[in-house]
Structure formats: structure tokens, C-alpha cells
């Protein structure tokens, strides 16, 4: 059997998973299906990160994005969706869909052309897999300020979301 590149096979499988799930997100009728499609996209992208030697980031993507953001999405969907409307809850807009479709295809075409035609300054750098230590040093070193700002932002987000959702709970009068 000819030497097949495992990395290539993995890439194709992950690309199929990611783009297939993205198609589900884009075209599904039910918003729950779209959210499930997002799960596929996030897992596929985590796989891509692992292939691109960003192991820490792959784990963080699964932990934060899937375990956090996606769960919040699912909660929101479940709390705002009634059974009767489930199947058609994510209808696309009535008019302008075709124009939007063509515009998006044109944009995709432009991006792909740019990607393929540009001569990227590829570096023959050593692929060093353990990235956790490097990321740690970077976050406490050159990127310390954005890190602290992000912490502040997350605090603001937590307080803000609690404030909004709390008033919702009080108004809704549910225990």
C-alpha cells in the first residue's frame, strides 16, 4: 500500500467534519440542529489546532468553547424554544436570500483566491509541540497587559450577564 500521509487523511476528515457541520449551522431548519452543528465545527477546529501543533489551545477550545459557550447556547435554545415551534425555529429571511448567497460566494471566492495566490513567507522553523510553557511565558511576559484587560473584561461580562439574567428571573417569577 502506498505511503499515505496520516496528517493528510486527518486533515481531510477534519475538514469534512468542520465544513459539514458549518453547513448544518447555516442551513438547518431547527435552531437546535444549528447548535448541534456548532458542536461539530468546534470539535473539528479543535482537531485542526492539534494538527497545527497547538495542543494547549486544542484542549482549551474543547474546555471553554464546547464546555462553556456551547452549553450556554444550548441552555439559551432550550429556554427559548417551545416544542411546537422547534422544527421551524430557524427560518431564514424571506427576501434577499439569493443576493446574500451570491455575495457570500463571491466573498469566499475572493478569499480563496487571495489565499492561493499570495506568496506567504513560509518559515522552516522547528515545530516545537509542547506549547503550554511558551504560552505561559508569553501571557505573563509580552502579553501581560492584554491578559489583565481580558480578566477585567471577563469580570464585566460575568457581572453584566448576571445582572441581565437576574432581572429576567425576577420578572419571570420562576423558582
Amino acid at each position: 500500500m502506498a505511503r499515505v500521509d496520516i496528517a493528510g487523511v486527518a486533515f481531510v476528515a477534519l475538514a469534512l467534519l468542520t465544513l459539514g457541520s458549518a453547513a448544518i449551522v447555516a442551513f438547518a431548519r431547527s435552531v437546535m440542529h444549528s447548535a448541534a452543528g456548532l458542536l461539530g465545527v468546534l470539535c473539528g477546529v479543535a482537531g485542526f489546532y492539534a494538527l497545527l501543533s497547538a495542543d494547549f489551545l486544542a484542549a482549551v477550545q474543547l474546555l471553554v468553547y464546547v464546555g462553556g459557550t456551547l452549553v450556554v447556547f444550548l441552555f439559551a435554545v432550550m429556554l427559548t424554544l417551545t416544542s411546537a415551534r422547534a422544527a421551524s425555529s430557524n427560518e431564514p429571511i424571506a427576501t434577499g436570500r439569493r443576493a446574500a448567497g451570491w455575495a457570500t460566494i463571491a466573498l469566499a471566492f475572493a478569499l480563496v483566491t487571495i489565499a492561493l495566490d499570495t506568496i506567504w513567507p513560509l518559515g522552516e522553523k522547528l515545530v516545537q509541540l509542547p506549547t503550554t510553557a511558551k504560552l505561559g511565558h508569553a501571557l505573563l511576559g509580552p502579553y501581560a497587559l492584554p491578559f489583565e484587560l481580558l480578566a477585567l473584561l471577563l469580570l464585566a461580562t460575568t457581572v453584566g450577564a448576571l445582572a441581565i439574567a437576574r432581572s429576567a428571573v425576577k420578572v419571570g417569577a420562576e423558582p
Partner: protein
Amino acid sequence: MKVTLEHYLVVGAILFSLGLYTAITRRNAIGILLGVELVLNAAALNFIAFDHYVAESHGPAGQVFALFIVALAASGAVVALAICLEVVRSHRGLAVDDLARLSR
């Protein structure tokens, strides 16, 4: 088949376009947010692909950016969904066409 930078960029471009299409053509607010998540993931994928393939002497800059994207996307989604919940509780439904004006 050797996987090069262009492969990842093409996947990122298609993901971005699908996300943009979702954000443009959905009526459900949560559906639009899902599209925005796709766009953010495509951008993060691009960052990491460049970090891997292009020589970089400033440390793992691409990965730091992707980490920030993950955190920011999470916080954005949380606030947006809290707002969605509030909107639903005021019995206004989630169709953004009806939400275009703040008062009924």
C-alpha cells in the same frame, strides 16, 4: 498529499463565508449568534495556521491571539444570550425583524 498553509486558509475562508451567510440570513437571534461564532472560529483557525507555518520570532503570537479569541467569543456569546433570554421573557420572541425597534 502534503498539507500546506493554503489548505488551512481555504478551509478558514469557507468557514468564514458560511458563518457570514448564517449571520446575514437568519431571523432567529440565536441563529445569528451561531453564525458569528463560526466567523470567530475561522479567524482563530487562520491565526493558528499562520503561527504554525510562517516563521515567527515573537513567541507564540498566533496562539495567544487564538486564546484571546476563544475567551472573547465566550464572553460575547454569554452577554448576547442573556439579552436574548431577557427579550424572550418580555414576550417579544426572537425574530430580529420584530426587534428592529426598541419599543413595540
